[in-house]
């Protein structure tokens, strides 16, 4: 069953080579034809949830742009295919979008797993590929020149903004010791590892480290071990349920650090406060790519439009990331005023783009050079506390109050 799509892809690739269409998208500048943008998204299967959110983000962007007269005077059309969260299908989809449908531009798909092969198809065909997700560091070590990650930085750098904040504290107020329990996960562990190195450089002594596997439910022993070391600060590389489990066990054992940072878990707003109890969220730090109340241009319009379409719901971060990816592409096309893949790529390497995530810019490999937002739970809701231009609260809760009874 697996060989068939591969054979098909091989055949398609061969056809592409025979036809000699290495580059495409030279559909000229001054026409009134709509600009077509090809996307393949995981609308079903494992990544259906972020995939559906991304679709919403892209479509809201399209409608807002078209209502505003389009991009360089041309309306925008999206051609969205479903890759069913399958790596083979995503390759076939993008190949088809480029070679048969001859779309003018591409936008990326969701997850590193799918963006990895998809971006290779784009690069081979000399198409710019702006991806809303796919921040795994190995995406950017392949020497690609037309790949752009439309978030602040690769996922391992998520915690840097937190290290910056620690650095900004007067030396006497910095935590002396830290514990690093982390989930063995491609998104949680690199965040914890990178942060540990940064913080050690700042003189924060590592007193405890442990890596626990996915599916761990029993956190009392980790909690007990952490408590035994009495660290000033806990940095927890977490997904979701493990982050909640750790907070619960720390509370059961009655150990509250002065500073607590968790990756991912606290960003799941209501699920997190339900899981640990609202009073226990106070002062917990995390980093995030987007916030619904961040004062970035168009952010409010995006949030309002989303609420209007989907029963007052708040956009998921994935929808916002997709909206931002489309904004990046739009800015580049408007910057070079034509659809020329080389020029668009060069423009993005040289310029900074204002998005609803804040200002984004890229290094030569397409990694973001900006910093994530530092968020903190305050009075039962998440606030952005740094950087200044996107913050929603000017105060920072430090030290974290004890767990509430």
């Amino acid at each position, binding site marked *: 069953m697996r060989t068939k799509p591969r054979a098909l892809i091989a055949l398609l690739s061969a056809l592409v080579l025979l036809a000699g269409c290495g580059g495409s998208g030279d559909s000229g500048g001054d026409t009134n034809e709509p600009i077509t943008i090809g996307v393949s998204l995981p609308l079903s299967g494992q990544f259906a949830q972020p995939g559906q959110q991304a679709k919403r983000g892209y479509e809201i962007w399209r409608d807002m742009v078209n209502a505003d007269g389009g991009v360089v005077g041309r309306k925008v059309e999206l051609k969205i295919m479903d890759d069913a969260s399958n790596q083979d299908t995503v390759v076939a989809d993008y190949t088809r979008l480029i070679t048969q449908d001859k779309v003018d531009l591409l936008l990326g798909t969701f997850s590193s797993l799918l963006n990895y092969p998809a971006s290779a198809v784009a690069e081979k065909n000399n198409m710019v590929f702006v991806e809303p997700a796919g921040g795994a560091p190995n995406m950017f070590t392949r020497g690609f020149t037309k790949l752009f990650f439309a978030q602040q930085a690769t996922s391992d750098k998520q915690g840097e903004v937190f290290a910056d904040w620690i650095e900004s504290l007067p030396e006497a107020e910095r935590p002396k010791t830290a514990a690093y329990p982390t989930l063995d996960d491609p998104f949680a562990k690199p965040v914890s590892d990178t942060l540990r190195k940064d913080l050690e450089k700042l003189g924060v002594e590592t007193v405890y480290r442990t890596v626990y596997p996915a599916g761990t439910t029993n956190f009392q022993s980790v909690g*007990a071990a952490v408590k035994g070391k009495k660290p000033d600060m806990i940095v927890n590389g977490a997904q979701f349920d493990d982050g909640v489990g750790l907070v619960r066990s720390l509370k059961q054992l009655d150990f509250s650090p002065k500073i607590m940072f968790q990756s991912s878990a606290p960003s799941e707003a209501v699920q997190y406060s339900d899981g640990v109890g609202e009073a226990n969220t106070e002062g917990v730090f995390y980093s995030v790519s987007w916030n619904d109340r961040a004062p970035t241009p168009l952010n409010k319009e995006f949030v309002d439009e989303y609420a209007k379409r989907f029963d007052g719901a708040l956009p998921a971060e994935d929808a916002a990331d997709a909206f931002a990816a489309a904004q990046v592409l739009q800015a580049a096309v408007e910057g070079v005023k034509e659809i020329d893949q080389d020029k668009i790529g060069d423009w993005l390497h040289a310029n900074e783009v204002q998005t609803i995530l804040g200002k984004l810019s890229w290094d030569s490999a397409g990694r973001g050079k900006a910093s994530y937002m530092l968020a903190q739970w305050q009075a039962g809701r998440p606030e952005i506390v740094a950087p200044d231009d996107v913050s929603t609260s000017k105060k920072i809760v430090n030290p974290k109050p004890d767990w509430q009874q």
Partner: protein
Amino acid sequence: MAQLVQGLVLGLLIGGVYALMASGLTLIFGVLNIVNVAQGALLVLAATITWKVWSVTGLDPILLACLMGPLMFGLGWVLHKFVVSRIAGRPASMSVLLTFGIALVVEGVLTLWTGNVFHSATPSYFSQSFRIGAIALPKAQVFAFLLALVVLAAFYALLRFTWRGRAIRASAENPSSAALVGVRPGPTSSFAFALGSGTAGVGGAALAVLYPFFPASHYEWISRLLGIIVLGGMGSLPGALIGALVLGLAETLTATYASLRWSTLVFYVVIVAVLLIRPHGLFGTRVREA
């Protein structure tokens, strides 16, 4: 020393809850020769209903177990009567397919109903502890453990001292002889399956307080429960109890003295070691292959 005692206590507390969850699974296998892969899904279903009732009414989730047990008992009875009984007498592998299907249906229904997000019931005591010197006893774990003890004791008494219970044990040991002395296989099987589901109801109520869960959590739970009953011996109740305590202790002690990373591995190493010496598990009897 305090650390060792703490590890032992936590391991026993959580092991008791595992035992409750696994007891139904091993009973269903013992009597019906069915590997009920849906047990994890029933657990998560019960946890979800408990969470829902708790969040709407504020009733204590662990007390809700008194409601969830009978409810899941009823559901189990219906499931067996109309679905599972159709594969009576077929090989155990058939039951794996069927109950896996049931698990997928339950997962799908839960996803539609509550969304693919984590839930947890958090009554006031969920993250508090009793303290004895340096030892912390998390209240939720203590309550869940006591609940498990009561239910397991009742379960044992029922199997031991009631006619129904003896009929179940007779069917488990020798179905054809049991039939000869007047035990009707149909109702006895339905009762056993319902009883097994009922324990998932009580276990699910405890789960709702102990851990965050979401519809697909059942995969993790069923693999843990299967590990427990394979270690203890498929179909053996004391085996499930011992297997569960071994898992609880392996988890906490390995995490305390080595790393959590190894705790799952240690448990499976124990299973493999036991199976090498006793292929039918600690308390299991050799299964006659038909």
